[in-house]
């Protein structure tokens, strides 16, 4: 992929920082989760970080991103502060949803995150609505609908692609295809091929969702086409879910076994950075350590923040 070689150091380091932040935060959540300090169902995205980083690098704060239940990765990549996320997981007033949302309902209006939903599929339509608003008010922001492979089985998926195409709306559809609908593998849950189905409506491309530079390049093309008035685009990112659907445990399905050299987006990007001379090994170690410090800070912030007053919801 020739464009891989031409990426600027700033962009590459942003991708790495973002992916590492998502990964290390997720690992920390997984470690803390059994202690019950976070009373909220968490759907971690370890292994899937390249999709969040590669796409969100091309989005602005004005672009409105609507997420499903697997929120942490794309929300952090879109700009949600780590402290706001962690405090929300801890159920504190300083959380991004003031303790009313939890892991699956994250909000950050300043960074174009108007909310996320735990009912698979429905939020696809909300991104289309944002695109409609952009068109009707002649503003140049994008609506971004973010969903997994399982959501392509819901009727709202078809309805949303159809309407976005009919109205030629500025909408980016991102399918973060981790191969599973809860525990059901793609071959069992979808009779269709996702890219060909989407291509009936709009330009659709499939990329290796474990290769952040591939996602970055494909997202660049898609976003550019939308911003120049080309209507909706569909980005199908095939990635791998290392964890179980929900919770802190690793996925134990033998057919989904992880090969780090093949599957880990961070491992692959770091190898590229070292080999191309864009970053030194010492730099990469320092970055990981710095991110650990930010996570420590976010946890301290969450732990020291107040809980909401129960009387707010009492009858």
């Amino acid at each position, binding site marked *: 992929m020739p464009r891989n070689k031409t990426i600027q150091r700033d962009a590459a380091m942003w991708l790495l920082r973002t992916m590492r932040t998502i990964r290390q935060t997720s690992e920390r959540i997984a470690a803390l989760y059994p202690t019950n300090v976070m009373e909220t169902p968490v759907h971690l995205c370890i292994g899937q970080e390249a999709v969040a980083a590669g796409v969100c690098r091309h989005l602005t704060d004005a672009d409105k991103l609507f997420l499903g239940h697997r929120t942490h990765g794309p929300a952090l990549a879109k700009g949600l502060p780590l402290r706001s996320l962690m405090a929300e997981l801890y159920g504190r007033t300083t959380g991004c949803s003031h303790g009313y949302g939890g892991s699956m309902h994250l909000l950050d209006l300043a960074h174009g995150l108007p909310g996320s939903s735990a009912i698979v599929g*429905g939020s696809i339509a909300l991104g289309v609505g944002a695109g409609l608003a952009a068109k*009707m008010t002649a503003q140049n922001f994008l609506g971004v609908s973010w969903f997994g492979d399982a959501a392509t089985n819901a009727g709202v998926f078809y309805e949303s692609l159809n309407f976005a195409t009919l109205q030629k709306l500025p909408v980016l559809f991102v399918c973060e295809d981790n191969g599973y609908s809860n525990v059901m593998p793609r071959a069992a849950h979808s009779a269709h091929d996702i890219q060909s189905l989407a291509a009936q409506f709009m330009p659709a491309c499939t990329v290796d969702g474990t290769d952040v530079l591939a996602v970055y390049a494909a997202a660049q093309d898609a976003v550019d086409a939308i911003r120049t008035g080309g209507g909706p685009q569909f980005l199908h990112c095939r990635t791998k879910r290392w964890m179980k659907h929900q919770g802190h445990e690793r996925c134990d399905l033998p057919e989904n076994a992880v090969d780090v050299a093949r599957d880990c987006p961070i491992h692959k990007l770091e190898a590229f950075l070292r080999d191309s001379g864009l970053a030194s090994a010492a730099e990469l170690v320092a970055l990981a350590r710095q991110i650990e410090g930010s996570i420590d800070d976010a946890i301290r912030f969450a732990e020291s923040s107040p809980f909401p007053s129960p009387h707010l919801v009492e009858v």
Partner: protein
Amino acid sequence: MPWSKFDSTYSAPLTGRQISYCAALREGLDQAMGLDPRVFAIGLDADDKFGVFGSMSNLTHPERVLGTPISENAMTGVALGAALSGLRPVHVHLRVDFMLVAMDQIVNYVAKWEDMFDRQVRVPMVIRGIVGRGWGCGAQHSQTLHGWFAQIPGLKVVTPSTPYDAKGLLLASIADDSPVVFLEHRWLYKNMGDVPAEIYTLPLGKAHRLHQGDRLTVVANSLAAMHALTAIEQHGLDVDLIDPRTIKPLDIDTIVDSVRHTGRLLVVDYDFPFGGFASEVVAQVTERAFTSLRLPPQRLGFPDRGMPSSGVLERAYYQTPERLAAVMQRMIAGESVHADHQALVVPS
């Protein structure tokens, strides 16, 4: 904010200008769109020359009227996404029954979005549904369901009965920063009434006394309110008739005050009986004014089964002003009427 100048307590003076309920709805929407460029209308056949039974004919801003495919669920999500992006959608459904296709969006999304984020975002969105009845429309084109929608936290439910209310409540619903389910009855569309030409809003959550009386409190909304009024006027009944106008928020204070005075309560609720609006009114009145009640409170509405089609069956199924009058007269006479809801259930 163009809406902030409207005082919700202001009552537009009547001017003798007579227009229909349908024309009042059309005028309210047209004036809202003229006042606020963020207001737009969306829905199946919204842009058709048929104009949604005339309620959207010849609007001044057709560029903000958008017809949609039959995709009610996604279109509700589209309206929500637009509302979260700065617009004020009015999503119209030719039948209330069609809204049920969108219940995931209406209940899980629209109704919950403000609560899930502690009201850091608002959802200024109106969902209009038109209630059908008669001519064999049957079980899937005749539902009302205002009590069902009102059960969901996060939805206001508005059911105007007069042209004056239709316009003022529609404008108030569009002005509101939270989701409103606005249910219009097709049988009211031709009714004429006094409607001021000016823009005005009516408070959501304020009942209207349609008839003053001392012997019996009747609570009725939408078409039921008009049928109750007809019954009272034709038979000269001494009834305090209260139209709540909005099912939620519910002006229970006005209802309770009336029951404290009359000691008798009948709720006429053209909706399914089990756990519905009438049940809610009876429950709240019983909780608050039990000792004022001189008769067991009663409910009148639909039988607990889907609407039939044949005219013979329809005429048996639906209440009429005459039937309402008969029940009111018995209650005024102190007779303990007990509507046998079980008898209306299909025998198993």
